[in-house]
């Protein structure tokens, strides 16, 4: 570990973005991207726990083959609301709105995002959308599945479809505004010397994510709006009775919602690129491949949505194209996985908590991605469609991928965000518990699904019970594992060890300012003269004598 030369860490100043101003108003009206990131952090954590409670109810119900804990109608609402809360209010904003918001300006050496007021607005929009959705849940809930398929959602469901739809519609604008802000910021706000190919890969993946946010989200917005009108006013372009085609809804829905999967996982990939390179102290293998694979995923992700509709009346020929392209989208993802693995090769890995999450991510994401290929094959999908295999597959991506990356990133940047260290021992322990719990939850679901257990039923044939018992046991472990960080993060904000500006000894720009950073991030606008992940090789540092003063004495 060599200290970073050519840059002086400013003397620890008492004033930082947290204590620069006090009072509720200073938080609710802040335009500082770092404070807005914390506002997001608090709100998405809240939604994560609501979604988690629904998950708990699902697992409890499925412990036994009979429907004894929940009625079938209640169960429909519970899995729908689990999906809606987790997808729209946790996973989609999770990494971009918290870590992305906090780090993007810092990583490019800017004082803030391009549009700070729009950034704050996006949080309020998120909040309004969230509150409307919570109102819908409290008023009676919604039972259509998170996919809102017509004509059930327009004609037959008796639940609060319109209110939930309105919440998601509004929330979509928050996503659009965030994406817009990121794109403009990365284009126009980079510090002198911060060229595109010196940017940390975290930024490339967020750029790609933002592309999907601005290109996809408007389509789901108009779709949900049309759906709501159809339900309220009896007009319809999705209603077969009026000559409409329900499959059109699925086309429009998945045009956004499949790329939305990449909104969830691409930022996670960005975090993992940071973690893998930085905790193995080695420049990432094939920087430009990893960078462009993010863009490729964003583009290809828009060409595959029909693979959600293989068992609908969608044309078989269109299905073939969609199937082929779904296989193609695995290529850029695989490039990333191979490059991360190649980065690890012959590097000096330190197994700190963030790295444990990163290693977990690589394995779990690979399983999730490979099982996706099973589902992308036309014939296999007929067997596996709407079974627990699908559920297991996307949870491996969403939880094993995004959530792991989110946790890893949160640990990694926690000292920068709060100025305090989290307890390393507990961190490693909980990472392990979460990994074990996760696999125990979802691995059996692959088998149950393959054997034919359908999703979205509250009762099932007794031969599937063993898998469900294992799954529920795993979910309890996973839930327990998630509670540990929740506790020690809060604890560390007050009692944690004070963090240095650069606790991991890394070259990135965000580590070249105090922890927590001042309101404008840097005392002076930095001038970037180094590449991303530029770890000087040890022999060179010895020759040039780049070690810090204490090491040079020896």
């Amino acid at each position, binding site marked *: 570990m060599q200290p970073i030369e050519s840059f002086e860490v400013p003397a620890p100043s008492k004033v930082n973005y947290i204590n620069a101003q006090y009072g509720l108003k200073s938080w609710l009206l802040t335009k500082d991207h770092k404070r807005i990131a914390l506002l997001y952090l608090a709100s998405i954590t809240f939604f994560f726990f609501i979604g988690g409670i629904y998950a708990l109810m699902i697992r409890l119900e499925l412990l036994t083959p009979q429907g004894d804990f929940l009625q079938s109608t209640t169960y429909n609402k519970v899995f729908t609301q689990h999906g809606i809360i987790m997808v729209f209010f946790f996973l989609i904003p999770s990494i971009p709105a918290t870590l992305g918001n906090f780090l993007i300006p810092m990583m490019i050496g800017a004082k803030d995002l391009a549009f700070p007021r729009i950034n704050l607005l996006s949080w309020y929009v998120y909040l309004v959308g969230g509150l409307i959705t919570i109102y819908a849940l409290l008023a009676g809930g919604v039972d259509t599945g998170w996919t809102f398929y017509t004509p059930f959602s327009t004609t037959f469901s008796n639940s609060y479809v319109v209110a939930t739809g309105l919440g998601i519609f509004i929330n979509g604008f928050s996503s659009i505004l965030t994406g817009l802000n990121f794109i403009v910021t990365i284009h126009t706000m980079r510090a002198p010397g911060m060229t595109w190919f010196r940017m940390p890969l975290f930024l490339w993946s967020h750029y790609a994510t933002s592309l999907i946010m601005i290109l996809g989200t408007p389509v789901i917005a108009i779709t949900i709006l049309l759906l709501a009108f159809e339900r309220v006013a009896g007009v319809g372009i999705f209603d077969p009775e009026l000559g409409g085609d329900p499959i059109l809804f699925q086309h429009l829905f998945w045009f956004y919602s499949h790329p939305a999967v990449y909104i969830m996982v691409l930022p996670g990939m960005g975090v993992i690129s940071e973690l893998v390179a930085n905790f193995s102290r080695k420049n990432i293998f094939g920087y430009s491949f990893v960078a462009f694979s993010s863009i490729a995923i964003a583009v290809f992700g828009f060409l595959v949505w029909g693979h959600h509709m293989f068992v609908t009346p969608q*044309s078989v020929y269109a299905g073939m194209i969609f199937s082929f392209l779904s296989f193609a989208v695995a290529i850029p993802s695989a490039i990333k996985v191979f490059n991360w693995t190649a980065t690890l090769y012959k590097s000096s890995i330190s197994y700190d908590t963030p790295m444990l999450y990163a290693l977990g991510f690589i394995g779990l994401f690979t399983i999730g991605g490979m099982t996706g290929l099973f589902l992308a094959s036309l014939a296999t999908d007929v067997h596996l469609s709407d079974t627990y295999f699908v559920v297991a597959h996307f949870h491996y991506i969403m939880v094993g991928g995004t959530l792991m990356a989110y946790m890893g990133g949160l640990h990694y940047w926690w000292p920068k965000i709060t100025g305090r260290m989290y307890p390393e021992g507990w961190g490693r322990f909980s990472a392990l518990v979460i990994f074990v719990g996760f696999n125990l939850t979802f691995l059996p679901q692959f088998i149950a699904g393959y054997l034919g257990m359908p999703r979205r039923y509250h009762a099932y044939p007794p031969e599937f019970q063993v898998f469900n018992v294992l799954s529920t046991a795993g979910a309890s472990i996973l839930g327990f594992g998630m509670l540990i960080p929740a506790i020690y993060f809060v604890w560390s904000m007050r009692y944690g060890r004070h963090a240095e500006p650069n606790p991991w000894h890394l070259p990135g720009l965000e580590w070249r300012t105090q922890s927590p950073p001042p309101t404008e991030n840097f005392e002076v606008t930095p001038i970037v003269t180094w590449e991303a992940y530029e770890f000087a090789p040890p022999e060179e540092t010895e020759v040039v004598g780049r070690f810090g003063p204490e090491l040079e004495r020896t």
Partner: protein
Amino acid sequence: MSEHIVSVRVYITIFLALLVGTALTVAAAFFDFPWRLNTIVALTIAVAKATLVVLYFMHVRYSARLVWVIVASALFWMGILFAFTFSDYFTRHWLSTGY
């Protein structure tokens, strides 16, 4: 990148061209083109008018390459939405299995 100021004369020319385009498209609508070309004619005129607005009123002709890329990508993604959805609807009847 200094700002380019479009002259008033250009604005007036474009404005008149747009009016002519509108008159043209109305006139063409009542004319029965062979091979159902009416749609093509109407869309061509609309695209031409839109292009004039984008290039001159919205200054894209004088803008940075990035703006070109943004406009092009929007059209590209619209193309994806249309092409792939229609790839379903246009090929459904090829294999008629009764649904």
